């Protein structure tokens, strides 16, 4: 397959050779780095700076030069609240609802997901048959696109869906799940756990397999109970991996948007509207397009994510050194 690219590579070689003659071998490294760095600059670092600028401007013009400077008014608007615990008392109540929804969602989703991933990883780490097959069973949904995940479950949960048919049959009776705020939220947590737990199971399984076998053999010699073995050996030795999984799932959880947006559209009402959807709707979906407010809200999320990423890098430092 690579042969197709050979002519192209020959063409690139001509200017690269000229540059090599002029710059010398070591400086050529910058040439190799250049495309990547330009892309990082244009699409990561420049936007961060622009984001700060946007957050201090108003109006609905996308061109920064045409936007009036408003100082901290966007942040003031977001923070204008009588009682931060009650979104109804806030000027920008949708923002606070999204914040609270996201907080609840992340707490529940990460807790449940890491719990089930750990359980699944421990079971997969046992002396079982067809481990590879079972591992891919749990991993499979990770590959599905968020929209596909949402539609699969919407089809199952719809009024005349298979779940309601089953509940009717057992005598419990069906329910119009996605019309009820609390149930819509609960199912959003469920599909999110369903879609992502395989990924964390995989990481935890790798962590479990890295624990030396002889530690367990020693525990067996000492007649330690399985529970004690788990508490005193597995958990402490797995804790670095567990921390990585926890932080990684928090980082992703805060950014949850796709699958829930396709699943419930953020509703009913604002029951499943999370912070990224708030940013999307303020900045891109509604009219007028409040880029300033969206940028200000982005900075709040960015702050949380930077903190979490620093924890992640700290937790990962052993892996980076190795």
């Amino acid at each position, binding site marked *: 397959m690579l042969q197709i690219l050979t002519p192209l*590579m020959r063409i*690139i070689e001509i200017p*690269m050779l000229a540059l*090599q003659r002029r710059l010398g*071998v*070591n400086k*050529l*490294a910058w040439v*190799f*780095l250049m495309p*990547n*760095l330009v*892309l*990082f600059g*244009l699409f*990561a*670092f*420049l*936007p961060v700076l*622009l*984001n700060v600028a*946007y957050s201090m401007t108003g109006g609905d013009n996308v061109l920064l030069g045409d936007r009036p400077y408003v100082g901290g008014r966007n942040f003031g608007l977001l923070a204008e609240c009588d009682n931060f615990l009650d979104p109804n008392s806030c000027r920008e109540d949708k923002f606070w609802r999204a914040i609270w929804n996201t907080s609840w969602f992340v707490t529940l989703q990460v807790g449940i997901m890491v719990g089930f991933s750990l359980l*699944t990883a421990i*079971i997969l780490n*046992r*002396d*079982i*048959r067809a481990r590879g097959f079972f*591992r*891919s*069973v749990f*991993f*499979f*949904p990770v*590959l*599905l*696109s968020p*929209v*596909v995940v949402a*539609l*699969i479950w919407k089809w*199952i949960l719809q009024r005349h*869906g*298979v779940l309601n*048919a089953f509940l009717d049959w057992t005598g419990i009776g069906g329910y119009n799940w996605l019309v009820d705020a609390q149930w819509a939220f609960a199912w959003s947590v469920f599909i999110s756990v369903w879609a992502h737990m395989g*990924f964390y199971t995989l*990481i935890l399984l790798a962590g479990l397999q890295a624990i030396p076998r002889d530690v367990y053999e020693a525990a067996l010699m000492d007649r330690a109970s*399985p529970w004690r073995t788990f508490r005193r050996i597995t958990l402490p030795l797995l804790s670095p991996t567990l921390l990585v999984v926890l932080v990684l799932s928090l980082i992703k959880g805060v*950014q949850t*948007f796709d699958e829930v947006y*396709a699943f419930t*559209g953020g509703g009913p009402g604002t029951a499943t509207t999370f912070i990224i959807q708030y*940013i*999307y709707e303020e*900045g*891109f979906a509604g009219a007028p397009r409040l880029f300033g407010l969206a940028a200000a809200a982005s900075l709040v*999320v*960015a702050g949380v*994510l930077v903190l979490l*990423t620093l924890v992640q890098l700290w937790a990962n430092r052993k892996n980076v050194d190795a």
Partner: protein
Amino acid sequence: MRNLWTMLTATRGKTRLHWTDWVSYGYLIMGIFLMFGPVLWLVLSSFKTEAALERFPPTLLPYTQQTVAVEGYDDPLPLFKMTAGEYEGRTLAQLRRVGLQAQMIDPAKPDERLRVSINDREPLEEIYLATENYTSLFERFNFLRFFWNSTFITVTATALMLLVNSMAAFALSKYEFRGRTAVLLIVIGTLMIPQTVVLVPLFLVVTELGMFNSLWGVIIPGAATPTGVFLLRQYMITIPDEILDAARMDRASEWKIFWRIIVPLSAPAIAVLAILAIMWRWNDFLWPLIVLTRSENFTLQLALNSFQGELQTDWSSLLAMTVLTLLPIATVFMFLQKYIATGIASTGGK
């Protein structure tokens, strides 16, 4: 069957299964049901006719009512089996239904009209795969266009990403130059800037570069990834420098060393990254949602999402389209699942 059972219950070294083994297998089998079940249900449902989809409770397999063509009637008539009443046991075709009564005829004797109660009959059904759900996608919607957009974005973005990231990884792993640590820090820094938090300014940059509503607006911003650079760099570090020195002795240019030596030797890592990139790009949603607003530019994911709003009740098309959207990724998964698993475990995700 006996052999299968022995195979399944045999354990390595142990003589018989402990109760915890039973619990483990129970959990795993429940896992198969819960993880594969919904997808299987989607695929089965996508082959049902509109009428079968509306049925409650639903049937597992796609059924449709048998019909018969009777002389003198333009449309084929639905067939029923009589379960009670005067004509019990006979198979009749329905002409029309009036309230609780139906006018039926015997296909063998089409002249005689019979009046029956609808409670005395059951529809005669057969398994039928409604492949028209799939074919109608191509007739009614611009499906090929969406498929092409998704494919174009995925292929181009993956190729571009592999080239750009492996060049950077090569520089960071095989050259000693001032500022290398600084560049590494910059790459780590970008880990902290996910697309989701710079949506507004990214939109401005892309618009200013004239890439709004263009597939390139989706392809280019994601071409440089810190994950890709790190994954490849970790691999390239293990390639011995002696090979490079030998090539330099032979007066190979640096670009040739990169292209002819480093890239082929890093093939395993590049393959892992390629699989990840294909997966990310094919499934990408939020950024395309912002950049591509005209329906002729939609990717499959966007089309699927917008149709589920428009076609609230048209589940037959929607389900078929969902299956076609997950098919490419499911195929890739079946053949390459081992590499995907190791790839994801080694990068820790995006």
